C-alpha cells in the first residue's frame, strides 16, 4: 500500500498519463462544486441573483431549525429505508442464489422489469393502488373489510413504501451477486468440518456476503437521501425531504444561494454518514486485507 503509491505522485510520466482523467474530473465535478460553493456566498434581490459577497445564506441556515428538522427527517427516512431494503432484499437474494437456482433466471427477469419501469410511473401506480377509493381498498371491501381500510396515502408510510419499492431491486441485485460469488465448496467445507446449516450460514455465508450488504447499504442510502418524487407524490408534500426542499428553493423561491447551500449541507452530511458507517464497518469487519 505504501512505497509505490508515494513514488507515483512524483513520477512525471504517471502525472501525464493521469492528466485526461484529472481534466475531466476538474471540468465536470470539481468546477461545478466550486461554483456551488461560490454561489452560497451571494445574495438574491427580487428573485434576481446579485453578485455581492455575504454570509447571509449561511447565517440563515445555521439559525433556522426548520432546515435541520427537514434534514433530520430525511436522514431518518433514508436510514429506515436502508434497513427495510436490507431486511427484505437479503432473504430474496439468498433464496435466488441458493434455493431457487432452477428458476432464478425467471425471477431475475421479473425483478429487472420492475427495476427498468420508470419510477414516476410506478410511484403514480401506487397512488392509484393506495387511494381511499383505489384498487387495494376496493379488493379489501369485496372480501368484507370496511371501506377505506388502507388509509396511508399522503403520509410518511406511503413515502417509505414508495422509497423501499423503488430502491429494493438495487439491494436485491447487489446482495445476490455477493452471495452468488461465494464458492460452493466453501459451504461444503463448513459442513464437512462439522457445521450445522445455521452455523455455516453464520460463519461463512453471511461474512462473505458482507461486502454486498455494505455496497447495497451505501447505494440505497445515497439514493434515498436524494428522493423527491416519493415524498411529493405519495407523501403529498406534507413533510418534505431535503431534495424536495432544494428543488423548491431553486425553482419556486428562486433563491439559488440558499439552494446551493442546502445542497452542500446535504452532500456533506451524506458523505459523513457513509464515512461513519465505513468506520464502524471496518472496525467490526471480519475480512482480511483486501
Amino acid at each position, binding site marked *: 500500500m505504501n512505497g509505490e503509491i508515494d513514488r507515483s505522485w512524483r513520477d512525471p510520466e504517471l502525472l501525464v498519463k493521469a492528466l485526461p482523467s484529472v481534466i475531466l474530473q476538474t471540468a465536470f465535478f470539481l468546477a461545478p462544486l466550486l461554483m456551488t460553493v461560490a454561489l452560497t456566498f451571494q445574495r438574491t434581490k427580487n428573485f434576481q441573483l446579485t453578485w455581492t459577497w455575504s454570509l447571509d445564506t449561511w447565517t440563515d441556515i445555521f439559525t433556522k431549525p426548520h432546515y435541520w428538522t427537514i434534514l433530520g427527517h430525511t436522514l431518518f427516512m433514508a436510514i429506515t429505508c436502508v434497513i427495510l431494503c436490507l431486511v427484505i432484499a437479503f432473504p430474496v437474494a439468498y433464496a435466488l442464489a441458493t434455493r431457487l437456482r432452477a428458476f432464478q433466471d425467471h425471477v431475475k427477469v421479473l425483478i429487472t422489469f420492475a427495476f427498468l419501469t420508470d419510477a414516476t410511473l410506478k410511484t403514480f401506480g401506487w397512488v392509484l393502488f393506495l387511494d381511499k377509493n383505489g384498487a387495494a381498498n376496493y379488493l379489501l371491501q369485496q372480501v368484507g373489510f370496511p371501506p377505506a381500510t388502507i388509509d396511508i396515502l399522503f403520509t410518511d408510510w406511503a413515502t417509505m413504501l414508495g422509497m423501499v419499492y423503488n430502491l429494493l431491486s438495487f439491494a436485491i441485485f447487489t446482495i445476490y451477486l455477493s452471495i452468488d460469488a461465494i464458492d460452493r465448496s466453501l459451504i461444503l467445507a463448513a459442513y464437512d468440518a462439522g457445521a450445522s446449516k445455521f452455523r455455516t450460514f453464520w460463519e461463512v455465508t453471511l461474512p462473505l456476503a458482507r461486502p454486498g450488504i455494505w455496497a447495497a447499504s451505501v447505494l440505497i442510502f445515497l439514493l434515498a437521501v436524494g428522493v423527491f418524487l416519493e415524498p411529493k407524490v405519495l407523501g403529498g408534500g406534507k413533510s418534505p425531504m431535503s431534495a424536495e426542499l432544494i428543488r423548491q428553493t431553486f425553482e419556486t423561491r428562486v433563491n439559488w444561494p440558499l439552494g446551493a447551500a442546502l445542497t452542500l449541507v446535504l452532500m456533506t452530511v451524506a458523505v459523513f454518514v457513509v464515512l461513519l458507517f465505513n468506520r464502524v464497518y471496518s472496525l467490526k469487519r471480519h*475480512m482480511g486485507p483486501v
Partner: protein
Amino acid sequence: MAGEPILEIRDIRKNFGAYQALKGVSLSVQQGEFIALVGPSGCGKTTLLKQIAGFEEPDSGSLSIAGQPMLGVPAAARPTSMVFQKLALFPHMTVADNIGFPLKLRKVDPAIIAKRVEAMIELMQLKREYLTRYPRQLSGGEQQRVALARSMISEPKLLLLDEPLSALDVKLKKVLQAELKRLHRSVGVTFVHVTHDLEEAIMLADRICVMRSGEILQVGGPNDIYYRPADSFVAGFIGDTNLLAVTVKGNAVSAPGLTAADPTVPAQYVAPGLGDGPALLMVRPELITPLESGQVADFTIDVTITEIFCKGGTVQFRSNTEGGAPLIFELPGASKQPADIGDKLRLGFPKRDIYLFRERVAA
C-alpha cells in the same frame, strides 16, 4: 491389515436423471490404507467420494465407516474430512482460524485449539508467523498445507482428497506428493485419494481402484495395475504401452510376425477367465530389448523403426511390425543407439514380462 474394514461400500448406485453416475460400486478399505480412486473425468470417482463424505446420498446400496452405517448421516456428523480440489479455505478467516475451525465447531477450549493448531502447523512444516495471515497471502503450496491441516485437526477416520494436487505446477506437485506420503506414514489415517493421474496414484497409493463410466474396473496394488491390468483401458491409462492383437488357442499365443520357440504362456501371465480367441498381449516398452544376431528371447518380432524420441532419461523408439502393428520400445538414454529411422531390427522380450487379457469394447 486384516480385521474390520474402516470403509465398506456395497453396491452403491447413484443416478442423476437418466445418467448413471455409479452403477453398483463395492469397495472395502482397511484401516491405515492409502487408496487411490483413479479414472478419466466423468468416471464417477468424485461422485463416489461425495457419497463417502455425505454431500450426496446414493440411490441404493450401503456404506459404513468403522462398522457404523453412514447412509442418512449428514456430512457434518461423519468421521470423514475432505481436502477440496479448490482447497476451500475460508478467505475471511486467518490461517489459525481456518485450521482451528473444525475444533471450534466441536466447542473445544480455545487454549487447546491454539495448541493443536500449532502442532498442525509444525506437522505441515509451515511457518508460525503464517498463523495470523489470510489464505490469499500464502502461496499455492502453503495454502495446500493449510487445507490439509484443517482436514486433519479433527482426527478424522477417513481423509478424503479430491484431486487437491491437480491445479499445481509439476514441481510443486512432486513436493506435495512426497509430503502426502510422509503424512500418511506419520499419522496413520486412512487416505482416500481421488485423481485422474494414474502415475500419481501408483506413486502414492497402497491400492488403486481404477474406475470408468461409474464402475470399478480393477482394484489392486500399483504393480497389479501396472503389469497386470484387467483390460486394455486400464493398461492404456498409464504411459505408453504395447498392446499386440494375438490369438489364443489352448495356452499358446500367435500373431503375425511373432515367433517363439515355445508359444505357451504360463497361467500367471494370463488374465483370469481369458479363454480361447482374440486377446491382447501387453508388454511395457522398457521391457523390450533389441537382439543382436544370434541372441535369443522367449518371443521375438521383426520391426522397422519409424520414429525416435528423446525422453531425457530414456530414448523411445516407435516401430511397425511386419503385420503393420505399432510397437514402442525404450532404451536408457546413455546406451548406444541400435538403429536409425528406417532400419530393420529384431526385438525380443521374455515371457515373464508379458500379460494377456481381453480387449474391452469401448463403452
